[in-house]
């Protein structure tokens, strides 16, 4: 952190420092006149009171994944049924600790990614390169302003934010060691803190790259780009980028452009790097999310793979070697035991790679890695391509070894009947395997268990070959932030509840039944004119399905932030803009101050902005930290069934009236405002439950009657359609008769009467006593 010195102090010490070399932190022009709120750069405990308030209503709910603790050499300690470990901890606090560790891993990924990309861009463009997200975006960094209390103007300004984030992560991590924090509530408060700094890191990373690279700047009409395993032109040399950091990938494109051969080489990506490549250049292609890694690499289509960081299968280099694909790793996080050739001459690196004497190397220099990748791909593609033989026959032979022992299914994380599918192919019936392809995570765990060593994932690939060839989709490339103008337009209808809600599809591809359910959910909400946004793997998977007209949802719906849209913000780090949009509404529409003013804004969002995220396939620790950060700001998150393995939810109890009071800003009175939103983090077992839950969780105490009526009509309609009945908890969400959808009013009133419903007040809601304007 930097020291504050007035100009006077500096002048007086100026004599002394003459002739010396100086180390200067940074010089910031203080021209942001917004008053600083109570918590700029909050410490671990500065927002603890808010956390405790949230957690009192949304109690942590733990589903231990393991009954033991193995974190120190006293262990393993069995913590079943109230037993304590040698350090005195019980299972509840231990689970809080595990959750905190996960959130910290996630936050550390984003912080590190942000630091890497900021360093890279500073090196390329200089510390003074301006943060600029386009003409209609003045509020460039809602989360940084909110949390850090600064207004970043140049790339260099982001560095002190990163210093802060790194410090928080380190301090939080220390609390997970044996014999530190003891209370589960405070572990959760710390997890919320970790989530918050995670979210800030997202923003740092994405606004840096949007500013300094040529990404769309909040463009609702960001171009449609190619996505799918079928879009790669195999006749060309193919370079595949895997990971999250666009630096090396963009340097590939730079080099291709400079050499005038862009177009004759395919540049494709998997995971977030793919998103960001298409934001950098529409010529790049997206293979798909993480779940495509193993199968695509095995296809042998790529000549060279560039790995950067995060969400990289740890066996990818071995798999690449098997099909003759060369690999370059580029970032500290993934060294993979490879020889470091960063300082070797380009030509010699190329020689080693081409000859295969080193089929995989480490190059810590994005530009150099990019050039090497291109040259190697060009050189090996012709001969290598000729050599790749189809593994089809091998696979067909292998499946015959299946003894129907069932072990593969029992090792499958989502319990797919893969055993039956493999065994069925004995009779040349590959239909079941092809069917499983649509649900399968392609993670390979079944394979690993098979006593017959059947390459099950390859068998799935062969069985689904036709499908794979036809996987040609369009996705709107990541647009980045929401424009201030868009916020101005939708701020009121969202806050009043007239746009029924903002539904964000986020997170990874660990679905219970494939991506189709995700598409159905997104379609359902877009059709109903919710604002639908997507990011990361989810944004890709939403594109991986076409309707009867051959259109993906991105072709069917508009890309502006407005009712009935489907919008891709971009890679995981672009989640900052989804969360940031809520913050922007509070600032731009409601004129709430942001600067170091976290609690007030979180309180505003929780009570007024009907935004909900659905992380249907959340898998990574990053998804945990992003979600937890959103939760601290009052944004509920819904998880798919696998999300239960994060071990913790934040659940409200609708039946406990005393939990749902708010202060009425205008009277100071504590009034019951209904369980809205009912949960902050909730795991659903089915798509149907996720949809209906989302429709319920968008309700907010501040909804006007018209807004609540709209929200309720969707909630009731979806409930009836998917569950078959009118919601049992309807009465909790009807404040006055005016809240009731007109067409059903009489029917509903009858129901309400039966349930003993009484009208209630519509407060101007807050959870913060200090927000009360007037006491009656």
């Amino acid at each position, binding site marked *: 952190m930097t020291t504050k010195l007035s100009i006077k102090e500096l002048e007086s010490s100026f004599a002394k420092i003459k002739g010396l070399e100086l180390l200067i932190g940074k010089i910031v022009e203080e021209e942001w006149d917004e008053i600083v709120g109570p918590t700029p750069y909050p410490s671990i405990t500065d927002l603890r009171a808010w956390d405790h308030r949230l957690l009192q209503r949304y109690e942590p709910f733990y589903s231990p994944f393991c009954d033991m603790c193995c974190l120190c050499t006293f262990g393993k300690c069995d913590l*079943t049924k109230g037993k304590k470990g040698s350090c005195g901890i019980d299972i509840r606090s231990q689970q809080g600790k595990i959750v905190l560790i996960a959130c910290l891993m996630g936050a550390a990924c984003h912080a590190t990614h942000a630091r890497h990309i900021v360093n890279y861009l500073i090196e390329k463009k200089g510390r003074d390169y301006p943060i600029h997200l386009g003409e209609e975006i003045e509020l460039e960094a809602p989360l940084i302003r909110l949390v850090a209390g600064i207004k970043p103007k140049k790339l260099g300004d982001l560095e002190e934010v990163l210093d802060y984030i790194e410090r928080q992560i380190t301090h939080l991590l220390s609390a997970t060691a044996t014999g530190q924090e003891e209370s589960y509530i405070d572990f959760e408060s710390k997890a919320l803190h970790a989530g918050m700094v995670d979210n800030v890191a997202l923003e740092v990373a994405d606004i840096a790259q949007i500013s300094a690279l040529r990404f769309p700047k909040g463009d609702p009409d960001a171009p449609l780009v190619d996505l799918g395993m079928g879009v790669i032109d195999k006749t060309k040399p193919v370079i595949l980028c895997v990971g999250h950091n666009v630096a090396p990938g963009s340097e590939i494109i730079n080099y291709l452009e400079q050499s005038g051969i862009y177009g004759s080489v395919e540049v494709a990506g998997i995971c977030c790097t793919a998103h960001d490549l298409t934001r950098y250049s529409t010529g790049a292609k997206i293979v798909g999310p993480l779940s495509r890694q193993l199968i695509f690499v095995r296809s042998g289509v790529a000549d060279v793979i560039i790995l950067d960081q995060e969400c990289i299968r740890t066996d990818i280099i071995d798999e690449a070697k098997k099909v003759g694909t060369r690999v370059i790793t580029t970032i500290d996080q993934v060294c993979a035991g490879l020889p470091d050739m960063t300082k070797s001459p380009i030509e010699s690196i190329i020689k080693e790679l081409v000859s295969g004497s080193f089929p995989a190397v480490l190059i810590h220099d994005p530009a150099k890695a990019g050039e090497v990748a291109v040259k190697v791909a060009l050189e090996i593609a012709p001969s290598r391509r000729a050599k790749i033989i189809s593994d089809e026959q091998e696979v067909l032979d292998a499946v015959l070894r299946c003894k129907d022992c069932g072990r593969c299914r029992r090792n499958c994380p989502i319990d797919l009947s893969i055993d039956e599918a493999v065994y069925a192919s004995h009779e040349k019936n590959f239909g079941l395997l092809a069917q499983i392809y649509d649900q399968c995570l392609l993670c390979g765990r079944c394979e690993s268990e098979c006593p017959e060593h059947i390459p099950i994932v390859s068998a799935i690939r062969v069985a689904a070959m036709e499908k794979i060839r036809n996987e040609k989709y369009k996705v709107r490339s990541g647009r980045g932030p929401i424009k201030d103008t868009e916020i101005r337009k939708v701020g009121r209808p969202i806050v009043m509840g007239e746009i029924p809600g903002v539904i964000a599809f986020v997170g990874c591809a660990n679905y219970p039944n494939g991506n189709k359910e995700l598409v159905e959910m997104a379609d359902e909400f877009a059709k109903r004119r919710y604002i639908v946004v997507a990011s990361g793997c989810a944004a890709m998977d939403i594109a991986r399905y076409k309707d009867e007209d051959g259109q993906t949802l991105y072709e069917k719906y508009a890309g502006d932030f407005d009712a009935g849209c489907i919008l891709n913000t971009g890679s995981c780090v672009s989640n900052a803009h989804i969360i940031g949009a809520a913050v922007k509404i509070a600032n731009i529409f409601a004129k709430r101050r942001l600067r170091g003013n976290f609690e007030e804004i979180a309180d505003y969002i929780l009570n007024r902005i009907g935004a909900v995220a659905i992380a249907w396939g959340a898998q990574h620790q990053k998804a945990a930290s992003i979600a937890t950060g959103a939760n601290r700001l009052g944004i509920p998150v819904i998880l798919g069934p696998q999300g239960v393995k994060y071990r913790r939810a934040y659940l409200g109890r609708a039946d406990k009236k005393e939990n749902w009071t708010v202060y009425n800003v205008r009277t100071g009175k504590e009034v019951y405002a209904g369980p809205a939103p009912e949960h902050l983090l909730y795991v659903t077992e089915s798509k149907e439950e996720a949809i209906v839950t989302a429709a319920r969780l968008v309700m907010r105490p501040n909804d006007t009657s018209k807004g609540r009526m709209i929200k309720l009509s969707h909630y009731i309609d979806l409930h009836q359609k998917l569950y078959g009945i009118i919601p049992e908890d309807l009465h909790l969400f009807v404040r006055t008769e005016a809240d009731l959808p007109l067409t059903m009013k009489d029917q509903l009133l009858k129901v309400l009467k039966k349930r003993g419903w009484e009208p209630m007040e519509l407060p101007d809601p807050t959870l913060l006593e200090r927000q009360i304007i007037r006491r009656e």
Partner: protein
Amino acid sequence: MSATPWQIGDVPGPKQAHILRPEVFPKIVKTLKRPLIVVGSRKEVSEDKDIANNIVIMAKSMNSPLVVSPSIFKSFMKFKDVKVVCMGIEDLVNHLKEKEWKGFDDKGNYDSILFVGGVYYFQSQMLSTLKHFAPHLKTFSMDRFYHPNAEFSFENMSEVRWVQEFKGMIEMIKSSSVS
């Protein structure tokens, strides 16, 4: 049949479910005072009418309400003479773990929770929550998978066998509740 966790990696720790034998189950059932049957969203269960019917028959003979995962509620709402509640399972478990919860009839919490039809990994975690935080409850898994986090669980068995066993159990329960 074997009593190893159905999902190989689902090894929670030293405490794992007692094996529930189908032939013994009906006797145990008789000892339960306030049972609650919880039906998860696995499609095989809701879509197989036989299975759904059997579950309902069991609930009736045990005088137990049924909580049904929302996505399959439609398959169960038609049944009469049995209370069927549509509720998210995580939400339900959050209520169950509070000892003082009043139940669906305001008569207090249940004493034994019988799970069937859940998505394996999801149900396993719900059972884990109850194992750790609801010492006031007994939990049973009636699925065809060994669920280590339950207090009592059937062993792993084939679907065919399971359906068979289920029928047998129902016969026994019915006859014993008659007698």
